[in-house]
């Protein structure tokens, strides 16, 4: 009896350890392949269903992102000036915005091929960049760099660079401008309005 408990306990302890074992580049590759497979096969998505697309992203992609870290980086100095409640809402709205944008990017996907670059990192590294290249005919390949950090629950993405443009860095100026003009609550409001265009305009 005791032995069974001990075995079960060791499994429970080992399971998260195994989850952490997945190397960051392996993780990026498997998630990318899974998502591409899903969106090219799923009937609803092929018929243009945004809801289903967002569902896939939320189930497959979101768990591997650290939105708290992303929002903190995008906020820069203003992060320290935010209350815990503001931080929570900012993270939530930023996450929604990124998911929506990501869905649009995926909707434009049309059979481009991915080239997974070998990871250049030491096994002891806790902060790495995983490089993927999107190959398209007649144009230079587009690079996607995932900045990833090792956390207690596996590797998490905290920034994405597309063609050398860091998403987090790009939101920095926007965020700081908005905060300067209308405060942190103003930024939350702007993000919310951006995420819910129907509330305000009635059209579109």
């Amino acid at each position, binding site marked *: 009896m005791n032995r069974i408990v001990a075995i079960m306990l060791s499994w429970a302890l080992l399971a998260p350890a195994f989850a952490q074992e997945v190397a960051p580049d392996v993780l990026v590759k498997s998630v990318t392949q899974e998502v591409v497979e899903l969106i090219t096969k799923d009937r609803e998505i092929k018929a243009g269903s945004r809801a289903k697309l967002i569902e896939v992203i939320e189930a497959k992609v979101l768990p591997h992102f650290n939105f708290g870290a992303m929002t903190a980086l995008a906020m*820069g100095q203003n992060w320290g000036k935010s209350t815990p409640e503001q931080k929570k809402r900012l993270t939530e709205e930023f996450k929604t915005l990124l998911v929506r944008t990501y869905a649009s990017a995926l909707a434009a996907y049309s059979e481009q091929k991915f080239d997974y670059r070998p990871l250049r990192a030491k096994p002891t590294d806790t902060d790495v960049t995983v490089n993927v290249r999107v190959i398209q005919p*007649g144009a230079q390949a587009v690079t996607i760099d995932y900045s990833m950090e090792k956390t207690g629950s596996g590797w998490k993405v905290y920034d994405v660079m597309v063609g050398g*443009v860091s998403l*987090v*860095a790009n939101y920095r*100026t926007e965020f700081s401008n908005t905060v300067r003009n209308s405060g942190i609550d103003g930024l939350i409001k*702007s993000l919310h309005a951006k995420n819910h265009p129907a509330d305000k305009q009635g059209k579109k």
Partner: protein
Amino acid sequence: MKCRVKCRVNRVFLLCVLAALTGCAANGEEREPRDPFEGFNRGVYRFNDTFDEYLAQPVARTYRKALHQEIRTRVGNFFANIQDIFIGVNNFLQGKVQDGVNDWARFAFNSTFGLLGIHDVASEWGLEKHNEDFGQTFGRWGSPPGPYLVLPFLGSSTVRDGVGTALDYTASPASEIRPINLRNSLYGLYLVNTRADLLDASRLLEEAALDRYVFQRDAFLQRRRSLIYDGSPPREKLE
């Protein structure tokens, strides 16, 4: 030819002076140091946006509907092939001889086996397509980008890249095509095809940005910096 370069450069210079004047008129709040002419730039941006909304985009959309993706790719390939000549020149100017030889080999193969470039056979044979222009060469030589500029019709640029673009156009063999009518038709086709390619990207921009002007500017400046270092610029650590 020489005069033309000069005229273009003069025009860019004039634009800078104009920008400097209007820039001063803008409110003296905490300003983005890389964009001292923001007031002027936003004006041009609005103009470009209107032009885009009422002319360029509708034309590009119709074009995209009328022609199959396959054909549009061929059109894109045709122009991309001509550009490979000067992509090579710029690689040589930056001391990247191997890349330059690669680009010229691409041009040679694609112009012949690829039927005037409409088939990108070189890529299939492992000769990679590069992205180079005079603006990047100046950057590689150590020229700072200078203030951000929004050029009429052409969009995001900087003083350095504006001069580079003027050179790109005048140096390109496409500018020597005669009769003029044919050349202009080709330019038109090139612009429409390019805009059609960017329809998805511009919709994305609309969705992602709180302030499209700022988002586009920052993305452009980041992108150019990355291109100058061929994709691996010294990392700017986000604290």
